Each structure stands twice: as C-alpha cells, then as structure tokens.
C-alpha cells in the first residue's frame, strides 16, 4: 500500500526493479523448445518426435541439432530460418531420409544471447549427441559457439551472410562472404548512386567488421565515408542519427545499412518521417530481406535497395518448387528470403556429404562436403575447399508488394573469399581445408 511505503523505499525497490530487469533480460533462458509448443512446428513429423530426454532409436534415425533464437530480439529473423531447415528435413525424410534413416531435429532456443548459444551448443553435442548442428544468425552467437565446436571438433552449418575474416575447419558457411554481398553492393553503389557514404549499423561485431571492409574498399576505389554510427541491438530512438546524416550529407548521398533486427523498423519508419527519401538518400541494406520488409512495412522501404544472393522473385525452377513447398507448409502469406534459402541449401549439402561419406562420422563428412554441388533456388552452388560456397550476387529494389525487383545479378556464381583482400591485415591470405598444410589461414 502506498501509504505504508516511504519514498526512500520506493527508490530502493525501484532501482532493484531496474537492476533485476536488466540482469534478467541479459540472462533469461526460456525453457528449451525441444518439445515444440510452438504450433507452427507441431504438425511436422520431423520436429515433434524428440523431446530432449527421450532416447531416439539410433538404428533408424539420425539426430541433428537446430540452434537459433526463438525468443529475444533476433527471433524476428531466426524463426523463419528454423522453418526453412525443418522444411528441408521434412522433404529429405519424405524422400527416404539419409542413408535410409530418418532425420530427427532437436530444436534449441539460443534466446538472442551469446552465452545461451554456447550453452545450448554444448548440450546438443554432449547430451543429444547430434550428427551436426544447423544454427546461429548473429556473428556474436557464432563467435560464442565457435570455441565449443572447435574444442569438441564438431560441425556447425551457418546460414547467414556475415563479415568474413574467419575460416574454421568446424564450420561450413552457406551465407555470403563479404566479396559475395557487401563488396559487389559497394561497387554497384559507386557506379550508380554516388560516392559519399554514411554507415549505420548495430553495435556488435558484424556491422563493425563489415564497415571496416567498406571503408577500406571505398578508400581504394575513390569513395568517401562521411559518417558512421552504431545503434545498440533493440534500440528504437534514431533521432540523433537522422540529424547526423543530414549534417553529413546535406545534398543527399548513399546510406549503407548494416542494422540487424528490430532497430531496422524504427530506422526506416523515422527516416521517412524526417524526409530522407530514396531519391536523394538511397539506402543499401544487407540484413533486410523479404521477412523484414514485411515486418517493417513495404510503404517505408519502397525504392530502397538490398544486396543478397537470393530473392523470392528469382526466376529458377528450383526456386519455384522451394517457394511453393514453403507456402504450402507454412501458409500462403509467408515469404522466403536469403538466409532461409541458405539454411535450406545447407541441410541438403550436409545430406549429400553424409551420403558420399556413407557415415555421419564427422571427419569423413567434413571431407566429403568439399566439392558438393547443389541445384539451389538461387542457382547452382558449390562447396569450396574453404568451407564457404560459391553464390550468385544480386541487388534488389523494394517494390510496393514487399518483394524485390532484381536490378543487378552476377552472371556466374562468385567464388567465396573469406579473408578480405581490402583490409591490410588479411590481404593476401586464403583458406583451404582440403590441404592439411594450408589450413585456415595461409599466405598465398
């Protein structure tokens, strides 16, 4: 009761409340979602079969781990990647499975928190004894699980475009390396949109590394960075950044956007209100795909650009089937996007590798994976010896219906270059896991 409580106590409890909420926000670990209470997945045979404790008969099933954020600020993006992975697993199971065995997915929630990701990765490997793990979105979460996978010599498949500068023997990267997304996007902007760049990103490892690369590339090609700012993940107050953009680019210029998650929504909504429109300030995003466009609202994004390897509108037979199957399983109003496609690819590449190796034994699969090709929705992709895949580069413009019009597409699949050739420290380095002497980082 208010009258029984002094003002000073209010203050104490109030700050205790603040403290607790910050603390809890940082380390809440919602209960594992293995049993799939989420109705989207409960219908799928692939997901419903394996609560984490129950023993799976190893005779007729192969367990794989799916490790993404189903809660927290990254859930907006990662949930649909899980959907794509489960679609691929379901398709494979329907076609007879791998080595005659059904794939059973163990789904864990990383809860948008790096320590949780590491913890769940350990759980998947040690307790569930999975054959491989498909997972992670943010570089933060990948960096957090990396020591786990390297320490246990296990295998992670990572489906998201990222900043490069990494080449682990224990990870297969099916998203774009910078030379397959960021660098072509910068080249395209320089050729078509202007030379003055303002860089906006979320405050963590991917945007910072990506911007280092962009700055080096711009310096090499005659562009100019007029400003740079970072927003903490989840923050929605972008007024100060708008002011800085206007001060730095009074007559218009290019904005390169590496924001992740919810901040994008606030960013685009408020930019439009402040009069920053695509005719004068074209924004190139590298983390905004069809899903995000839908959540932000196409009205706010129309005319802006995104660089990806895949758009839902890509015209290939494989993509037609992919989109059709996805909509049939998850609803006609759902969309597909690049990370989902990469997630879909990686499940198939893993399956092919296992079939070639004729076992799920990790070293054999690792070797067999290199050189695998797959007729993916984006076009034919190949797993390179540096554990990244060759990909097609595309740039799309957002249209009214929330889909992308492809305004640029590379003729061939671009070979992946994980160690960046614009940044001084990594210039001249490469990665080759097919050769034991070369390994993760060697001088060419």
């Amino acid at each position, binding site marked *: 009761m208010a009258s029984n409580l002094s003002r000073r106590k209010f203050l104490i409890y109030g700050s205790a409340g603040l403290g607790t*909420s910050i603390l809890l*926000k940082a380390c809440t670990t919602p209960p594992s979602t293995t049993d799939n209470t989420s109705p989207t997945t409960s219908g799928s045979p692939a997901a419903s079969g394996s609560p984490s404790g129950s023993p799976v008969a190893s005779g007729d099933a192969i367990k794989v781990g799916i490790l993404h954020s*189903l809660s927290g600020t990254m*859930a907006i993006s990662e949930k649909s990647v899980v959907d794509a992975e489960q679609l691929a697993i379901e398709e494979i199971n329907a076609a007879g499975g791998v080595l005659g065995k059904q794939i059973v997915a163990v789904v864990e929630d990383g809860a948008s928190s790096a320590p949780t990701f590491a913890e769940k990765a350990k759980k998947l490997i040690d307790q569930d004894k999975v054959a491989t793990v498909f997972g992670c979105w943010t570089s933060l979460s990948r960096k957090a699980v990396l020591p786990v996978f390297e320490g246990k010599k296990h295998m992670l498949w990572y489906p998201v475009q990222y900043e490069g500068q990494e080449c682990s023997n224990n990870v297969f990267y099916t998203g774009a390396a910078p030379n397959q997304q960021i660098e072509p996007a910068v080249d395209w902007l320089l050729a078509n949109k202007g030379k003055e760049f303002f860089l906006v990103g979320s405050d963590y490892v991917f945007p910072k590394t990506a911007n280092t690369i962009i700055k080096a590339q711009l310096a090499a090609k005659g562009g100019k960075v007029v400003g740079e700012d970072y927003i*903490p993940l989840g923050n929605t107050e972008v007024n100060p950044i708008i002011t800085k953009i206007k001060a730095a680019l009074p007559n218009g210029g290019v904005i390169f956007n590496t924001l992740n998650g919810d901040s994008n929504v606030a960013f685009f909504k408020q930019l*439009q209100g402040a009069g920053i429109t695509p005719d004068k300030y074209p924004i190139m995003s590298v983390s905004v795909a069809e899903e995000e466009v839908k959540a932000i609202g196409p009205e706010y994004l129309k005319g802006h650009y995104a660089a990806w390897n895949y758009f839902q509108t890509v015209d290939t037979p494989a993509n037609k089937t992919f989109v059709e199957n996805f909509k049939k399983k998850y609803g006609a109003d759902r969309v597909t996007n690049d990370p989902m496609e990469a997630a879909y690819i990686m499940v198939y590449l893993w399956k092919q590798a296992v079939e070639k190796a004729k076992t799920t034994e990790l070293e054999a699969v690792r070797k067999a994976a290199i050189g695998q090709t797959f007729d993916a929705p984006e076009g034919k992709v190949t797993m390179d010896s540096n554990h990244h895949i060759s990909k097609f580069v595309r740039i799309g413009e957002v249209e009214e219906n929330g889909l992308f019009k492809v305004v640029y597409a590379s003729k061939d699949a671009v070979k992946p270059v994980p160690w960046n050739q614009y940044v001084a420290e990594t210039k001249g380095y490469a990665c080759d896991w097919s050769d034991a002497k070369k390994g993760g980082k060697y001088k060419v």
Partner: protein
Amino acid sequence: MIQLFDAVFNGISTGAVLLLAALGLAIVFGLMGVINLAHGELMMLGAYTTYVVQNVSKSAGGIWFESYIFIAIIAAFLVAALVGFILEKGVIRYLYGRPLETLLATWGVSLILQQFVRSVSWILVIGICLFALLFWGAWWLISRRSDFERIKKLVLGIMFPLSVGISIATAFWLGQTYKLAVTKPWFGAQGVDVTAPKWLRGGVDLSGFQLPYARLFIIALTIICVIGIYLFLQRTTWGLKIRAVTQNRSMSASLGIPTQKVDALTFALGSGLAGIAGCAISLLGSVGPNTGQNYVIDTFMVVVVGGVGKLVGSIVAAIAIGTANYIIGSNTLGTLVGGVEPLAGIFKFFATTSMAKVLVFALIIAFLQVKPGGIFPQKGRTVDA
C-alpha cells in the same frame, strides 16, 4: 538558429515518447507504489491492438484506413486497461505492500504475455477457453453443494487434470483435423508491420529541416493525455478518491471510500495509458513480442528521476532525459563549441547512440546522488507515512 530549433524539437519529441510511456507507470508506480515490470508488455499489447485494428480497417479501406489510428488509440486503451484490471484482480491485489513479490510476479506476467503473443493461435485460444469453461464451470456447479468444503481437494484433484486432458486432446484433434488453419500463430515470433496512415507519414518541410508528422502527432497525443490525466485526478470524484487513497488509505477507507475499487480503477487507468503509449510507439518503431522491453527501463528511469508520486516530475524528467539523449547523441554540443579542443573531442567521443546512453545514465546517477528524491521530491507528512 535552425540547429537550436532542431535540437529543441527533437529533444521534446524524444521526451514525449518517454513521457507517454512513463505516464501510466507514474500512476501505477508513483501513486500506488506498485512496481509493475509488465508495464512494457501492456504497451506491447497496445501496439498489437493497433496492428489488429489496422488490419481490420485496411480491409474496410478508404477513410477507415486513414483514420484507423484514432480507433486504435481507444481500442488499445481499452484492451490494456482490461488486461491491467484482470492483472490487478488476479495478482497484484494480493501483493500490496510487498514490493519485492510484486516485482517478481509482474516480471513473470511480462514473460507470460510475451510468450503468449508469440504462440497465440486458434487452438491455443480454443484450448484455454475450453479449459476455463470446464474447470471453472465445474467448480461453480460443485461449489453450490453443501458439502463443498469437505470435497474441495478431491474436486481439484480430479477436475484439474481432467479439464487439462480434455482441452489438450481437443486442441490436438483440432490441430490434426484443420492443420494450418488453426495451428498457424496469429502474430508469430516475428514482428508485425504497423503502417501509419498516409497523413502520418512524411513531414512538414521547414527549409531543410523536416518535422515528421508522426512525431508531431505523438507530441499532441502526449499533451492530450497529460491534460486528461490532470483533469481526471483534479476535477472528478474518482480522481479525488484516488488522491485520497494515495495520501492516506486507512482514513479514506473509514470515510467510506471503496479502496479496493479505487485500486483496481487506478491500475486499469495506468495500464490503459500504457496501451495508448504502445499505439504511439508503433508509429515509430517495431511491433514485436519484445517491444515493451525496450521501453520499460527508460520509463522507470523517468519516474525515479522525476520524483516518485509527482506527475509534474515525470513530465520534466522525460523532457530532460529525452533532450539530453538527443543533444549528446547527435553531437550538437560538439558543433556548438566548434573546434575547441579537447572539449570537441570529448563530445565527439560520446556522440554515438551507445555512448550517449552511457553518459545519460552516468548523469542520472550523479543527479540522484545530489537529489535522491528526484526533481520534485514529495514533501510533508506523506513522505514517511
């Protein structure tokens, strides 16, 4: 000159968002002394209500879509107020005077609400309704028997698992029969898109400086809410009762004021205001299960800095924090001092969104050292009563 105007306007508009979000809390926390960590989730419910209203009016089209925001504000207020009312009646009522328990209970409620919007689907709703109907219906029927007290435990032991079982079985059967139509989540874990009507997008152009309509709208909405609250508390009978209960609960009770009703009403009012705030922030930012969490810390900060129990304190604190955040983050100070080193260097260092937040936090801590009671501390006998 333009720059100064820019700073003032943006400061006020940032502050207005904070104030609108904190207004409900200022009532619930400030007047009632309830630390409601679910305040952010009540805002989120307001934002989702806006989304639903938007979708309905979109299908109606035309003038309905252009004006949906007004209906959404009222709907958001009602939905959040209703949830707040249920929350008060179901949880908080039992925890008055025990702030620590309230803190934990409302934190739990906030997690439940977050997960609820993530996974709510037809089968979940049907399952919950069926359970409520079976369990409480049976409870109600049996409670009329004369020997109810004796068999109470037995009834609970049988009816609870039975209702749960029937509900889950029905939900499962529905899921198998109708598949996607009933199992598809209404909103899902992804954020949903709330698009402002056309007249709220864009802004007034003032030669090189644009005032966004959405911001102007929020400032106006905040002013209306503040005036409305002021009039309600000062000029109506219920306002008078609320103030009386706040000042001295036992004396009010002995004068015949129904304190429990007043509590429920006050809490519903504060929650309703959170709903309005949720509707407003959907114009600026994302609408997702986590929307509320982004604001709840800032709102507590506003109430504590302003002085607990004082609405005027919250107003001043919100504007001050908003302006400070903007001026530091946008490097306005850096440009003002020009090239004077090392001052300009220091300001530039703090002129990123993350560092601005750090500096504002530091300033608040320093301020609370000097004035622990906030800007407008309560004076007189009520302080330690």
